[in-house]
């Protein structure tokens, strides 16, 4: 993985010193609330319902075991013993004390981490495919490009006060596991007309109040121009994005109002003027970055079936189910990528305790070359596990509550912190997740349903990506009561689509029953091999809507 050199180290240390001084000035009354707000937000520090919330960047989701141990230490020393992983490869701490935040940042800096630009109207953490470098059909590992973007975007002097936040995701495989089509900019590694690798550049995607799927700005960009092209997009956005209305300030509104052709024309015109300047990436720099992401020392192995023990004995249904659902193919024979489920039914989705993080650090050291990853779906991943060690790993994960065999199923929900923690939320999400887990606790049924993305947000800011859930749940406030609007048919991958509202919102106690009815229609009407999403796309909303609103819930 990428290791800091003196430039990186200097910058994070100077940021810690700067923030320490800003915090001191605020606590001494030298800075007003409003002045300090603008400063702390650029360091990932929000003031939330109960306490400050600190968001720490995990660039493109990659963590060393040392970093995991520091995240555990921060949870234990400065928080209440846990952290919450987000959809954008960050971790959030919900209970830090303001005066201790500089110390947290100093601890992070020691292990080459930071909270720079994890909030505020600037370029946020660059995210990527959690299977980068290990998935079989990848064109190229996107992580060197993510690191190149991370550096370019960190303290970019021109783009630190944008109209609104700006999120970039990079993928290198045909499957899109980073939700790049709902990012401000999506960067896809693609093969060009002459067979060389370069980038397809998309812009204008986003969720929130106005969900929009990103559109192609340029079909093929030669690799050396990545940064100059991004700079041209950001410059047009910085100058022309709306600043008069916060809800219309994202780049998606600019792209929509200009139209993609005019937006493209402006970006290209700007790019022509800067394309061969100082941002041009030379082969030496590209090679240097790639050098940080070379494959680990894989052993020469062949694929085996680890669900059978050494003597051909059966290792049991629980391990089999876990192996089937929580591990995926690896490009190297004899290896699997292993999901660590943070979706245990009685735990808020995406939460991990300090003890779990410490354990994962040990397991990463023992089974996966000392590295772990954070997924967009709020789980963790050990990317390079030998198949013949999967059983031992499962036993260790299972003991720690990290082996819930539900990856990709209904209960592998994406969920924001909701009303319990967030000062923006209209409604609870964690308690609804709990109700859904209680209702759907039969694994045979969940496995029969197959792949279903359930995504839930506690308000229309859509941190839980509800628009792009096969089943989306949005918390709304109706006269002081928590209600939930249900959408179906959304998807966040390469075939991204926005879900359709099925009808009037439902009360909290009706959410699980509503989902049960949607699933009934699916089970009755599906064709073999059809996912829930496919059935919705084929049939439309009508039959689902009719069933949901046919009669009051029995319970």
């Amino acid at each position, binding site marked *: 993985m990428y290791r800091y050199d003196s430039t990186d180290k200097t910058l994070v240390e*100077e940021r810690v010193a700067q923030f320490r001084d800003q915090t001191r000035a605020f606590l001494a009354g030298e800075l007003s609330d409003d002045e300090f707000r603008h400063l702390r937000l650029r360091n990932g520090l929000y003031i939330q319902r109960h306490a400050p919330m600190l968001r720490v960047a995990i660039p493109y989701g990659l963590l060393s075991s040392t970093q995991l141990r520091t995240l555990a230490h921060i949870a234990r020393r400065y928080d209440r013993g846990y952290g919450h992983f987000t959809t954008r490869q960050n971790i959030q701490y919900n209970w830090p004390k303001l005066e201790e935040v500089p110390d947290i940042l100093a601890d992070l800096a020691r292990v080459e981490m930071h909270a720079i630009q994890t909030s505020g109207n600037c370029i946020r953490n660059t995210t990527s495919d959690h299977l980068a470098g290990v998935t079989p059909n990848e064109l190229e590992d996107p992580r060197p490009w993510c690191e190149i973007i991370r550096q370019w975007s960190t303290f970019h*002097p021109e783009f*630190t006060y944008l109209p609104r936040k700006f999120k970039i995701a990079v993928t290198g495989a045909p499957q899109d596991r980073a939700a790049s089509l709902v990012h401000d900019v999506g960067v896809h590694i693609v093969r060009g007309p002459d067979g060389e690798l370069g980038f397809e550049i998309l812009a204008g995607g986003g969720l929130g109040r106005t969900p929009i799927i990103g559109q192609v700005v340029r079909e093929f960009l030669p690799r050396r121009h990545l940064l100059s092209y991004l700079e041209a997009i950001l410059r047009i956005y910085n100058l022309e994005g709306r600043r008069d209305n916060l809800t219309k300030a994202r780049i998606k509104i600019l792209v929509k109002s200009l139209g993609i052709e005019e937006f493209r024309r402006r970006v290209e015109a700007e790019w022509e003027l800067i394309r061969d300047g100082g941002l041009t990436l030379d082969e030496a720099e590209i090679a240097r970055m790639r050098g940080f992401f070379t494959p680990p020392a894989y052993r020469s192995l062949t694929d085996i079936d680890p669900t059978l023990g050494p003597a051909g004995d059966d290792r049991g249904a629980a391990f089999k189910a876990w192996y089937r659902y929580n591990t995926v193919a690896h490009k190297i024979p004899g290896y699997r990528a292993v999901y660590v489920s943070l979706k245990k039914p009685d735990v808020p989705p995406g939460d991990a305790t300090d003890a779990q993080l410490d354990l994962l650090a040990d397991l990463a050291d023992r089974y996966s070359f000392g590295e772990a990853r954070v997924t967009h779906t709020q789980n963790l991943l050990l990317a390079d596990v030998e198949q013949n060690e999967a059983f031992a790993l499962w036993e260790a994960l299972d003991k720690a509550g990290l082996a819930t065999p539900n990856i990709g199923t209904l209960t592998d929900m994406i969920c924001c912190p909701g009303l319990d923690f967030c000062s923006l939320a209209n409604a609870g999400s964690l308690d609804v997740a709990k109700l859904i887990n209680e209702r759907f606790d039969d694994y045979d049924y969940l496995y029969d349903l197959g792949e279903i993305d359930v995504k839930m947000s506690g308000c229309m800011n859509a941190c839980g990506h509800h628009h792009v859930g096969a089943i989306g749940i949005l918390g709304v406030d109706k006269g002081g009561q928590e209600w939930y609007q249900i959408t179906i048919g959304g998807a966040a991958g390469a075939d991204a689509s926005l879900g359709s509202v099925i009808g009037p919102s439902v009360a909290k106690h009706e959410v699980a029953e509503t989902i049960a009815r949607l699933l009934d229609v699916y089970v009755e009407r599906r064709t073999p091999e059809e996912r829930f999403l496919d059935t919705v796309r084929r049939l439309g909303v009508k039959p689902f809507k009719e069933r949901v609103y046919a009669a009051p819930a029995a319970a």
Partner: protein
Amino acid sequence: MPRRLLRNGQIVEDEWLYFAEAEADAESRAEDADASPLILTFDQWQAERDRWMTSEGRGSGERGRTGERRRLGVILLPAHKVEQLLPDLERFDLVGAEFSGPSEGRGYTQGRLLRERWKFQGELRATGYVHRDQLFFLARCGFNSFELPDSDLAHAVTALSTFTAAYQPSNDAGLPLKLPRRLPDTPASA
């Protein structure tokens, strides 16, 4: 009391007068008013362009005491395009960008374009909502003078050295030191 500001890393008294200040000055002490360098708003410059560009300045229209043309500056608002200044850019010794509030960021682009694309060599001044924590970024975008609240002025010199390294190529005209950079030190070509 004359305005103090940060220019080229030093706290100095501002010899420039805004048009409105010059008007007030002209009434109280007519002597010097015509000689001071004068900052126009964008609208003042546009409205009486012929007068400002062809004559030597305001008032009698006579040359100042030294016989030099009166030095002129102009302030851009966030929505102005720097290209609008181009016909007269050479006439200006100072261009200012006004920051209307804490979230206004167009001035950063205006600064870079003036320095890097249009090769503006004069004083590039940040006015309006400008606080110490913006200075490093502004300086990297080519600003070399800053009108700051007095409470920030004392910290301003050190604020320019908040960071001693940078990733991006940029125009660091306003910084006291040349920063080591990750990417090559070639400013954008055009």
